[in-house]
């Protein structure tokens, strides 16, 4: 069977240059850099102009330290005035279709009591730093409603985000994780974060502290960049793409040899998370760049189960394969290796496999604190709502799903925010499409 898949894949192997066929276009960004507003050099306007005109990137973020830190008695933490100024400059220099400048902050500390560094872009406010309060930081990010990323997640450093411990309540706080930051590879941390349960996407950045915003060459001789898949080059589209984790991490050399690596599972792109009935999924990996690819890898739950060796060197490759998914969560991500050693990683696609037998269930059951309500999706559904009842039929809580085919989170609390008592609970799930309303019932248990 595997041989057959390989053969089909070879038949689809394409030669020649051209654009990857998708509704999104890949824009290249550097999402982590500093100026003298914290511990870097020069000023934001110079940095943005350099990234745009010299490095030729589409998106540049300035993420100044915001942690109250100081060096030799001099604070390098960004001031509120400077942050307002940075936001103003970023908005002024952003030109739709040409360049997007992001104002960011790098919060937290890598000191002995710090949880690590987290980049947050375009937050309305500055984090009131408490460098040991990781959960407080997650909750602040959720309040700000802006994208965020784990920076240089080095497990040998102190807390490293409580060893990337997964808190379901804060799942939506974190969007990306750095696989490369200037010189170090953090692929292990990426796999670990996914294994822990985080829904985070791939990013590679330069963490510039000198005047090389957008084209800093790392110790491997490559330039780290994040490919951001958006329909247009505007600030809202870029922020949406970051929060949707529609990204590719890459390190390239020369600067012009940028990589497009797009993963789709059943026509859903990297970063997406959806529920699907168990069965066969169609996976497509499309890679294109200025130089040849050597091999592509498909990782299943963090393990490179499938490999595609590019026999005839080509700068554009399409690999199609089928995989069987069963009950439970599975996630796929792709990795590409070029003949010249350049690498790229996609964000994962998360799929929650459900069975038609149990149309509405909670993961986990029994519920201790937080659970996901998972259900058999109605085709072409536009909305989903879960209503939770106790045994007596009392309406405990009504939750509207954020996406019609994504699990619905429940924190085990009633409409007034009180933890519900132990017992059996019922879920009435209502899915609506343009033509149909489907009601399904499920039963779960809370025990704590």
């Amino acid at each position, binding site marked *: 069977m595997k041989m057959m898949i390989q053969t089909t894949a070879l038949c689809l192997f394409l030669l020649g240059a051209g654009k990857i066929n998708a509704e999104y276009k890949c824009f290249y960004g550097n999402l982590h850099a500093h100026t003298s507003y914290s511990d870097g050099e020069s000023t934001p306007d110079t940095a943005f102009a350099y990234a745009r005109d010299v490095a030729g990137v589409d998106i540049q973020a300035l993420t100044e330290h915001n942690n109250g830190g100081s060096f030799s008695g001099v604070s390098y933490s960004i001031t509120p005035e400077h942050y307002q100024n940075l936001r103003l400059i970023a908005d002024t220099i952003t030109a739709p279709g040409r360049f997007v400048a992001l104002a960011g902050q790098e919060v937290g500390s890598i000191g002995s009591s710090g949880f690590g560094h987290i980049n947050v872009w375009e937050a309305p406010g500055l984090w009131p730093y408490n460098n040991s309060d990781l959960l407080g930081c997650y909750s602040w990010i959720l309040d700000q409603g802006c994208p965020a990323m784990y920076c240089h997640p080095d497990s040998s450093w102190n807390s490293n985000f409580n060893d990337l411990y997964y808190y379901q309540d804060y799942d939506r706080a974190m969007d990306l994780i750095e696989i490369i930051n200037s010189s170090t590879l953090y692929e292990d941390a990426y796999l670990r974060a996914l294994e822990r349960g985080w829904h985070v996407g791939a990013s590679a950045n330069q963490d510039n502290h000198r005047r090389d915003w957008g084209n800093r060459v790392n110790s491997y001789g490559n330039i780290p960049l994040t490919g951001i898949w958006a329909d247009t080059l505007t600030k809202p589209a870029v922020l949406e793409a970051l929060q949707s984790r529609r990204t590719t991490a890459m390190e390239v050399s020369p600067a012009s040899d940028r990589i497009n690596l797009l993963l789709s599972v059943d026509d859903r792109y990297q970063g997406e998370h959806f529920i699907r009935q168990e069965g066969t999924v169609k996976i497509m990996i499309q890679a294109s760049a200025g130089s040849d690819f050597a091999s592509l890898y498909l990782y299943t739950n963090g393990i490179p189960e499938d490999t595609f060796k590019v026999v005839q060197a080509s700068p554009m490759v399409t690999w199609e394969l089928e995989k069987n998914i069963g009950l439970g969560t599975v996630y796929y991500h792709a990795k590409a290796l070029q003949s010249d050693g350049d690498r790229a990683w996609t964000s994962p696609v998360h799929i929650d496999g459900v069975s038609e037998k149990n149309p509405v269930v909670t993961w986990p059951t029994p519920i201790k604190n937080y659970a996901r309500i998972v259900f058999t999706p109605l085709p072409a559904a536009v909305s989903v709502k879960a209503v939770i009842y106790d*045994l007596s039929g009392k309406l405990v809580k009504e939750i509207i799903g954020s996406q019609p085919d994504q699990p619905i989170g429940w924190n085990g609390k009633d409409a007034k925010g009180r933890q519900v008592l*132990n017992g059996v609970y019922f879920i009435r799930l209502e899915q609506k499409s343009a033509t149909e309303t489907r009601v399904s*019932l499920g039963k779960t248990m809370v025990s704590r």
Partner: protein
Amino acid sequence: MKKIIIISWAVMLAQTVQAQLLYWDMPTTAEQVVFGEGCLLQSREPQGLLQNPSSLGFIKYRTLSASGIQWWQEVYGGSASAALPVRRYGTASFSLGYWSLGTVSGYTEDGQPMGTLQSQASNLGLGYGLVMADAWGLGLNLKASRLNLPDRYDWGWSSDIALMYKRGLLSGSLMVKDLGPDYPRNNDIRYPQNTAYVAGVRAEYLAGKVSGSVQYNIRKEEGGYPSLSLESYPLTSLSLKIGYEKIPELADRSPLGLGMELKKLGRRDLSVAYGYRSYGDLGNIQALSMGISF
């Protein structure tokens, strides 16, 4: 001093009360299904009488009753109770209840199946009722329940106090229902019981061929609601029952309950009652009760 009393009274009222599920309040009998809380006043079937201890004292015969209920979503309940007149001193009651909450599929956090989980609840009730001056009924109920989960259990207890005045075809009752400590007793997550204050009157017409009651139930948090109940006898041994009760937080429960009863069957005064109520998309509930007096 007065201020302090007013403030503490306001604090008491403002205290958040979770309308938590108290298993002893889950209906198991046909009349509870039909009348809802209205059965506290309206009910005449032996087991229904036990719900309101102030009417216990008026039972002059030993009675036994048993009920089974089909709940929605593969949940089943049952109960059995006995009332025993203690000469001159009143009437005592004893009841046992059981709920099978069915099976639930177990899953890990990432959706791997983990077999099936089962849970049950069991209830115990003790009551005592007195009649004074042939008109005043006074009663007390003690109730306890235990919920069994795969790896733990929760338990709690409560009480009801009731007063009834009965004159001819008229009766009136006041009741404090679910008075007890936080529930459950053995869990850090516990809440004050949602004590209800119930008042109502019941009247019979046409020599008992038609009876009806109006009752009002007041609770701290969710506010009050009325219960209206009606029973009529088109035949001597057949009665039809209808209850109206709209409890705000039971959004899917039909306000109407329907039922019927065959009474005075055989020499032992056997009765068989049936009750039905819809819970919309969640399903329907129906109960069958049997009683015997001797």
